[in-house]
């Protein structure tokens, strides 16, 4: 049986616009990531996300994290739940 699995690894902020469509993101005039006109925030520290500080999106979810590694603890905590 083949599982459909994916992890998108991006190098820097220039790559972010390439996958914004997959998540229905738009980048506002001020440079923030938004969806349905709502800013996207880090689930852990509530930082409003821009392409340059987007760190991770939890697999299989719409849970977003900033590029601060301390927020990874939250990411991994969620990861272990899956």
């Amino acid at each position: 049986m083949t599982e459909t699995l994916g992890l998108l690894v991006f190098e820097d902020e220039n790559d972010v616009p390439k996958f914004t469509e997959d998540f229905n993101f738009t980048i506002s005039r001020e440079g923030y990531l938004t969806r349905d006109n709502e800013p996207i925030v880090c689930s852990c520290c509530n930082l409003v996300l821009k392409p340059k500080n987007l760190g991770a999106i939890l697999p299989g979810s719409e849970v977003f994290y900033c590029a601060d590694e301390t927020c990874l603890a939250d990411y991994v905590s969620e990861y272990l739940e899956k």
Partner: protein
Amino acid sequence: MYRQPLAKLVRTFGLGKLLHQYEPEIEEKIKSGISDKEFISLINILPLDFKGEVENHLKDLMTTRDKMGVIRADMLLALHSLVSRLKNNEEMLKDFKLVLKSDHYKALLLSTTIVNFEDNGLMDEARRMKKKLESRFRPFGNKIYNWHRSDYIKGYFYPYLLYSKAVWEKSYPERFRRYWRDHLGFFPDSIWIGPEMTEKEIHDEITLRLKRGRPKVFIFGRGSLTNMALKASQNYIDAKPLGKNLKKDSYWADLGDSSSVMITLLVTKPIRDQKKKSKKRKSKK
């Protein structure tokens, strides 16, 4: 430096900037797609605990349970480190997650990453993460890290957690949380020397523990603080009244780019008995 091989690996297998269709055969592809030399450098660079399971770890990182995940390349190392260490302690950490406050649990996870970095010689990464841990989870982050570094999480708190679970069943989370909280306020067995501590403060901490009847007190010092730890403990033995009842032993260890010392102050003559004797003397008079 570490990013290059990993980024190369990611590109080699079409993960970078693409959605990847993962199939079980990917493990074979990884095995055959990397030359031995590259494989070794990857193992050396990544903080892996076991070489034979590199493939499984990569699989773990890629596994998204039927959906897509996204991560920035420079965060992969920290994620990888955390996941690989957690996989070995998954059951223990899940047990802690059930009982600890969210912030305390996060600090515990971050400490795990730092310890893993240190154990694998990634000292710059470890220092950077530790600064973040200290600033974000003040005042308890550093204490939880110290416990982790000194093996108290696994050897002290976890046995108590299992014991609590068996004895108190339903009320164990609340009881364990209280136990954890009390220890964050005062850890009865050990003192970790911080850069801000004076010798007098160290002496006061030792006295406090001895007067509470502890049979031994451990003092931990690291890097430039090793001398401070040694000097303060020796001065205590030489100059303080309770010091006469102590025997000192030191254990040295190397932690990446710095040495650390664990000093044991062993009580050879119970403090309580002395009090009784002095009372007897007074009553005789």
